[in-house]
C-alpha cells in the first residue's frame, strides 16, 4: 500500500504551557508539560480538517475489515492454521491492529516526516531547541484517528475472546498491556531507524513504505512459519513476536516464559540499536538548506 504521509499543516502555535520553565521544576515535569502542549496542538490541527479526519478512520476501518474477512474466508476451508484456531487468529489480528494503531497514533507520522524535515532544513531548528532532539522529533504530533481505530480493534478482540470463552485474570490483562508496550517499542525503534536513513538519501520514502509490508507479518500466526524466515523475523526483525506473544499470553498457550523474555529483550535491543543509529546519523548531519 503506497501511503503518502499526510499533508503537514501548521496548527496554531501555543506557548502557554511552557511558561513554567523555571529551573526548579523537575525535568520530567517539564517534558510532560511540553507533551501536553504538543497534544493540544495536534487536537487543534485535526479538528481543522474534521471530514478528512473521519474519512481516514473509515479507510483504516475498511482495511481492518478486509484483514478479518481474509481470515474468515480461509477458515471456511480449514479448521486451523498450525495450532491456531479461527478465533485465536481473529484475536491475533485484533491485537496486531491494536498495536499498529497505537504506534500510528504516537509515532508513525513523526517518523515518516523526518525526511521532509531534513529536506526543507527544519531539522536544524529542532536540533537547536533546548530539549532532547529525539523526544521532540519522535513525539511532536499525535494522530488521534489511531486511537479510535485502536478502540475498534479492541472491540474485535473482546468479541473473539468471548467466542473463545476467555476469562483473563487481572495479571493476564496487565501482562498483555505490558507486552503490547514492548511491541510498540519495537515498531517505533525499527521505524525510527529506517527513517534515519533519510539523512543519507532524501528518497527514504520507499524504505519507510516498506515497513508497511512488515506489519503484514506481525498479524500472521507464528505457526505458519519455519526455517530461516522464522529466524529472521524473530531474532533480527522481531515481527513474529510483536503481537503473537501477547496473544499467546491471553489464550494461555505460553509453555514457558522464554517467549516473554525474548520479546522484552528484543524490544530493548531494537531501542538500543535505533539510538546508536540515530546518534551516528545526527553526528554526520550537515544541514540541507542555508
Amino acid at each position, binding site marked *: *500500500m503506497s501511503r503518502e504521509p499526510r499533508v503537514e499543516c501548521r496548527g496554531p502555535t501555543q506557548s502557554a504551557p511552557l511558561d513554567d520553565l523555571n529551573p526548579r521544576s523537575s525535568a520530567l515535569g517539564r517534558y510532560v508539560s511540553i507533551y501536553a502542549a504538543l497534544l493540544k496542538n495536534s487536537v487543534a490541527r485535526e479538528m481543522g480538517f474534521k471530514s478528512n479526519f473521519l*474519512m481516514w478512520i*473509515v479507510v483504516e476501518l475498511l482495511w481492518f475489515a478486509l484483514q478479518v*474477512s481474509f481470515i474468515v*474466508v480461509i477458515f471456511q*476451508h480449514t479448521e486451523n492454521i498450525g495450532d491456531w484456531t479461527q478465533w485465536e487468529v481473529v484475536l491475533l489480528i485484533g491485537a496486531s491492529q491494536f498495536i499498529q494503531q497505537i504506534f500510528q497514533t504516537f509515532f508513525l507520522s513523526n517518523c515518516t516526516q523526518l525526511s521532509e524535515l531534513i529536506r526543507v532544513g527544519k531539522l536544524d531548528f529542532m536540533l537547536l531547541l533546548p530539549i532532547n532532539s529525539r523526544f521532540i522529533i519522535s513525539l511532536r504530533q499525535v494522530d488521534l484517528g489511531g486511537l479510535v481505530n485502536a478502540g475498534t480493534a479492541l472491540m474485535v478482540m473482546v468479541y473473539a475472546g468471548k467466542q473463545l470463552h476467555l476469562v483473563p485474570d487481572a495479571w493476564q490483562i496487565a501482562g498483555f498491556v505490558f507486552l503490547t508496550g514492548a511491541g510498540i517499542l519495537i515498531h517505533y525503534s525499527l521505524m525510527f531507524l529506517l527513517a534515519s536513513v533519510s539523512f543519507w538519501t532524501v528518497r527514504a520514502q*520507499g524504505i519507510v513504505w516498506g515497513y508497511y509490508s512488515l506489519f*503484514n507479518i506481525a498479524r500472521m500466526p507464528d505457526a505458519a*512459519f519455519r526455517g530461516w524466515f522464522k529466524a529472521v523475523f524473530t531474532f533480527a526483525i522481531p515481527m513474529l513476536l510483536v503481537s503473537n506473544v501477547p496473544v499467546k499470553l491471553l489464550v494461555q498457550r505460553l509453555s514457558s516464559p522464554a517467549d516473554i523474555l525474548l520479546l522484552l529483550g528484543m524490544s530493548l535491543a531494537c531501542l538500543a540499536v535505533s539510538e546508536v543509529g540515530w546518534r551516528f546519523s545526527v553526528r554526520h548531519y550537515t544541514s540541507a538548506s542555508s
Partner: protein
Amino acid sequence: MIAVNKYWHVVNIGIQNTLTYRVNFLFRSVFGLIPLFATLSLWRAIFEGRQTSVAGHTLASMVSYYLVVTIVDALTAVNEDDWQIATDIKDGNISQFLLKPIDYLTYRLCLFGAGRLVYTAVAFLPVALFIVVQRNSFVLPATGAIWSWFLLSVAMTALLQFFLSYTMALLAFWVLEVSTFIFVVFAFEYIAGGHLFPLDILPPALLKFLYFTPFPYQLFFPVNIYLGRTTGVALYQGLCIQMFWVAAAYLLARFVWHKGITKYGAVGG
C-alpha cells in the same frame, strides 16, 4: 503521424522521470516479496497434513496463483499516477495542458505506460529470483493461444486500472483530499480483485455477484486465463465483458473530465 510522435516524446520523458525512482521501485518490489512469502507460508501451513484440495486448489496451484498475481500486478498496477493527477489539479498545473494541443488523458496514459515499463524492468530481477526459488509450483501457460489471450487480457486490465484511477483522481476537481477516496476504492480492488486470495474460494453465490462488478477483471480474470482455469466459452465471454468494462471506464473518465473542467477554477495556476 505528428500526434504519435508527440506522445512518443511523452513516453520518453516518462521513462526518464521514473528512472530517478528506480531505487525506490527496487525497494518496493523487494519489500513486496516479504508479505507474499508470508502468505505462501500461511497456505503451506493450511495444506499441511490434508489430502483434500481447497475449493479445487492444490498447494501448487495456490502458489502459482500468487506468483502470477505478482507479475500481473507489476505490469498493470497504478502506483503514483493518481496522486500526481490529483496534485496537478489541486496546484493548478493542468492549466498548461488546457492551453497546449495535448490531450491530458493520453498524456497521462503515456506516462503510466512508461512507469509500468520501468517498474517491470526493475522488479524483474527480484521477482524472477523469487519465482526460481518457488519453481516447483510455478507453471507456464500450456499453449501459445493461452499466452496471447493472457497478454490481451493483461493489456485490458492495465487500461481498466488506469481509467478507474484516473477517474478517481479527477475527484480532486471537487474535493481537497482525494487520497481517502482512492484508498477506499483500493481496498475493494484489493479484496474483490483477488489480491488477497483467489476469488474462487469464496462461496459460489458471492463469486457470481462479484462477476457483475469490474473488480475481478482488474486482476483475477487474466490470472485465471494464465493458469488455464478459464477456457472455452467462458474465456471469450469474459474477454467481451472485460472489453465492456474498459470502454465504460474510458467513457466515465472522459465524462468526469468534461464535468470537472467545466467547474475548474485554475487555483494558483
